[in-house]
């Protein structure tokens, strides 16, 4: 029993611009990696601007960073790491031909963790910042302790975590589609490319947060407090 498409008339999910399912799989994977390259440059532009202002206004950035709640930042980092594990296990379960219920379970766990991330961020962090008047442009309460650079830091905090959160929400949408596709028996050890490709996206969003956590929450160390 070959896993190549050559002995199938129409292997599952085969698209006819390709010659073989193998070519299609490679093209799909390369396509997602190329897309992730664009995402690296997209977030990277924001990281560049952040780096410039951190270098020029270090004291203010440090002061702003110390106003963030590191416990929630760390918790959220852990939440996303677990979600990457569950995502990897979801893909593995399809690769190894396990029941679709197993795959769906892992996918839904991933979604719950993703939703938890957003919930923690929205309620414990952003809502808290709103109450304390730390949202630039929308609700910023000027204070003598806050140099202009502190407001600028909070701009970057909200823009970067906000852009990240938008990507998380899109990821939740993608996971929903995957759950539906799995429930409809679309995947098998021969064809699980959408899962693999979506996994790449999900892990990328995790990696962005892996950098955001120390760069936003731990500027200049936390030993002062």
């Amino acid at each position, binding site marked *: 029993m070959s896993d190549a498409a050559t002995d199938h008339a129409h292997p599952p999910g085969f698209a006819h611009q390709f010659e073989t399912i193998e070519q299609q799989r490679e093209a799909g994977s390369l396509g997602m990696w190329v897309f992730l390259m664009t995402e690296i440059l997209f977030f990277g532009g924001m990281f560049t601007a952040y780096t410039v202002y951190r270098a*020029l206004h270090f004291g203010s950035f440090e002061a702003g960073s110390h106003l963030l709640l590191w416990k929630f930042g760390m918790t959220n980092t852990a939440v996303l790491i677990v979600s990457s594990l569950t995502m990897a296990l979801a893909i593995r379960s399809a690769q190894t031909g396990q029941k679709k219920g197993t795959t769906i379970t892992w996918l839904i766990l991933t979604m719950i963790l993703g939703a938890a991330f957003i919930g923690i961020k929205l309620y414990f962090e952003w809502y808290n910042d709103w109450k304390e008047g730390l949202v630039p442009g929308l609700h910023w309460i000027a204070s003598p302790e806050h140099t202009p650079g502190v407001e600028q830091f909070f701009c970057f905090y909200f823009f970067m975590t906000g852009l990240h959160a938008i990507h998380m929400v899109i990821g939740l949408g993608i996971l929903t589609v995957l759950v539906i596709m799995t429930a409809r028996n679309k995947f098998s050890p*021969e064809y699980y490319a959408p899962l693999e490709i979506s996994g790449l996206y999900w892990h990328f969003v995790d990696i962005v947060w892996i950098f955001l956590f120390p*760069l936003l929450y731990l500027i200049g160390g936390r030993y002062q407090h």
Partner: protein
Amino acid sequence: MSDSHEHSVGHVVPISVYLAVFVALLAGTALTTGVAFIDLGPLNTPIALLIAFIKMTLVILFFMHVKYQPGLTRLAIICAFFWLGIMMTLTLSDELTRSWEMNPKPWSVLMPHIPHLARFFF
């Protein structure tokens, strides 16, 4: 869990590898936070970034399966980061070397930034 992975078209990573990476990532997170509470002066930031890079590498190699991919994938990732590096380096080469003087001595333009840079890079 049945492992009928001889039919899978891609490389199947053992669960033990995933779990080991998972533990390493959590440990790295704890380490990053813990180190932040120790006064290492200018070293705090580079250590945090180093740990982040290691975590990222583990995710890329194992969760994203790049260890088992052809070289083209690796080239694509390296290119993207290299280009990001170009953007950061050349932008900073301007932002950190400005001076109000007419003909500044080359090294004097960087001096005001050294304390900040020292925190960042050393």
